[in-house]
């Protein structure tokens, strides 16, 4: 049966197989869930870690970048929980409902899930799996692309996460803030969340991922998001992992008709980051804005990979991803817009721009359009370049010193992506974060 080519497993692949074999009996969920985990793991076992000859992972060779697989994180101890209280500083001033996970496990004492608004339910995934929550049976795993190995590993090993449901017609004003914090122990966590926003409901979902520098921990995080008809969802994800962390995360979303969906990903931390967005526009006349800003320095590797699939008629989607690269950083953007034959009148525009602050930085962009309808407006653009010397001279000729002039131009470059965030507090926090990054760069 074997065609003769034996793929030698890497240390990481072997360790993942061991982790799964050992953990499988105690991972939450009934037999059906266990079966699903086995099936997902089989996808990984067959494909192995994605490498550069797998087109979707061309610029992020996970097989090479992931030298080992950390053991699955154990439940956080008191010290880890205490340390996690310091996390989430970026959004300290935002009045949000915090749902905190340390090393991938829900921590009730750091979270605020009491007195939920009417129409809102929040359940830790581990409990939902153990209890056989019917929402999982109907929704979990429905949006995950079957062949994606990162998502398959997540499904196989998912330990905890948030299961959130917002009932039809409910507007939840207070943002829901999923905070994922890694402790000092270099371990691997697999978190999976499911967010179901029913028709005519409204919510804002914030996600942040952070951990200490000096620990080469690994995060695989996934969110499946259902946006109902006429619903309005704002999503903001901050990848602020520790400097040595490996972070792979996925947002898989299905958006209904006449909905509004805005998603923004801010990448500033982590040694290796792969951020995946799989979007499906199932319902007609929806308006979406998918944006991202990445600030990478040192030898950071940051990859935003987006697939937007238009199935229904007349949706409008704007995608803008900006990347600032310093030192020897490597930025990747892959964006694919797919327009199915029934998705006439689709209006989809994708733009990616990279700003290279160093001659050794690298930016790779791969925009793709796959269009099967004949009456659409689709376009994409990609640029990569250095700061404009003439603009810098103009600023300096007015007395603005070199570093400050560059900072102004970098902020201006990112502005288009960040200023689209509707929530003023979140927007300002991110602008402050950019300013802090620039300040660290100048010193």
């Amino acid at each position: 049966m074997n065609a003769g080519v034996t793929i030698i497993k890497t240390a990481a692949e072997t360790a993942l197989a061991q982790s799964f074999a050992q953990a499988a009996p105690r991972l939450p969920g009934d037999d059906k869930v266990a079966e699903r985990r086995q099936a997902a793991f089989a996808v990984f076992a067959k494909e192995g870690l994605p490498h550069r000859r797998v087109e979707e992972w061309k610029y992020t060779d996970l097989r090479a970048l992931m030298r080992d697989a950390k053991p699955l994180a154990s439940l956080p101890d008191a010290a880890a929980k205490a340390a996690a209280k310091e996390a989430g500083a970026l959004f300290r001033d935002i009045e949000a409902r915090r749902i905190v996970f340390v090393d991938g496990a829900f921590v009730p004492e750091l979270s605020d899930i009491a007195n939920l608004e009417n129409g809102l339910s929040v359940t830790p995934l581990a409990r939902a799996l153990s209890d056989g929550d019917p929402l999982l049976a109907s929704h979990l795993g429905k949006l995950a692309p079957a062949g994606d190995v990162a998502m398959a590993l997540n499904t196989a090993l998912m330990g905890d996460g948030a299961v959130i449901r917002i009932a039809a017609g409910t507007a939840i004003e207070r943002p829901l803030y999923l905070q994922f914090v890694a402790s000092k122990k270099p371990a691997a966590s697999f978190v999976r969340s499911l967010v179901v926003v029913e028709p005519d409901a409204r919510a804002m979902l914030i996600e942040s991922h952070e951990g200490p520098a000096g620990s080469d921990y690994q995060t695989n995080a996934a969110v499946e998001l259902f946006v109902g008809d006429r619903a309005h969802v704002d999503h903001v994800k901050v990848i602020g992992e520790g400097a040595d962390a490996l972070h792979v995360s996925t947002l898989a979303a299905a958006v209904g008709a006449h909905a509004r969906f805005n998603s923004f990903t801010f990448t500033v931390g982590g040694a290796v980051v792969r951020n995946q967005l799989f979007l499906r526009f199932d319902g007609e006349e929806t308006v979406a804005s998918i944006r991202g800003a990445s600030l990478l320095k040192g030898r950071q590797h940051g990859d935003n990979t987006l697939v937007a699939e238009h199935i229904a008629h007349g949706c409008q989607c704007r995608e803008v991803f900006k990347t600032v690269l310093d030192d020897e950083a490597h930025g990747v953007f892959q964006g694919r817009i797919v327009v199915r034959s029934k998705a006439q009148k689709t209006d989809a525009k994708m733009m990616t721009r990279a700003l290279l602050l160093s001659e050794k930085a690298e930016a790779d962009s791969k925009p793709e359009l796959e269009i099967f309808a004949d009456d659409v407006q689709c376009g994409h653009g990609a640029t990569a370049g250095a700061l404009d010397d003439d603009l810098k001279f103009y600023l300096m000729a007015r007395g603005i010193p070199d570093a400050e002039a560059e900072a102004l131009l970098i902020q201006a470059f990112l502005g288009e992506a960040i200023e689209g965030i509707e929530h003023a507090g979140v927007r300002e926090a991110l602008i402050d974060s950019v300013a802090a990054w620039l300040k660290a760069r100048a010193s």
Partner: protein
Amino acid sequence: MALLEIKNLHVEIDGKEILKGLDLTVNAGEVHAIMGPNGSGKSTLAYVLAGKADYTPTAGEVLFNGKSLFEMGPDERAAAGLFLAFQYPLEIPGVATMTFLRTALNAQRKKRGEPELSTPEFIKKVRDLAGKLGIEQEMLRRAVNVGFSGGEKKRNEVLQMALLEPRLAVLDETDSGLDIDALKIVAEGVNQLRSPQRSFVVITHYQRLLSYIVPDIVHVLSAGRIVKTGGKDLALELEARGYAEYQEEAAA
């Protein structure tokens, strides 16, 4: 002591010599006009004074307030009181005009050891100056020069000059692209800034601007050198007779 002293200045761009031994002395309170045909080196002079990269001085020196200009970066020159009004002011998408003005003013004040202006003080100052120059408040809310007409950009340059209060302002073809009404507004803005302490170098191709900004001294620049210096009447003479005789002189 002269405010600006240029001695035997030679400047190259991409290995090509543009200024070939230029001498110019500007004392405090004087307005000098530099006129000359296209390609004579007028804009090169403006840029080399402001410190643009790729404009390489190969010989001579420039003293500003007694200090060598070439040892200072463009931002230090600005803080020391040098201002260049650009012939083609740049558009900077994403940088709000007010942020730009405020960053510039405070950076200069900081370098001079002066306290930063408070927000209300700053806003009042900009609004007053903008009002005098006929700059709409709405323009101040836009990104720097983005969507501005040619005339609006030039007025914005004069606004920056008025706000930054330089010791020496170099106006590089500030009249180009302006209709007569805009020209009057810009000239009026410049004239209001004239003082015994402040000097101007007005670079222009045409005499027209000099009817509104009346110079003390007029120089003719040709082929990288000052070839003639005279009073304000020299500008009228040039207008009537053209630059032909100076070009021949320079070529000879």
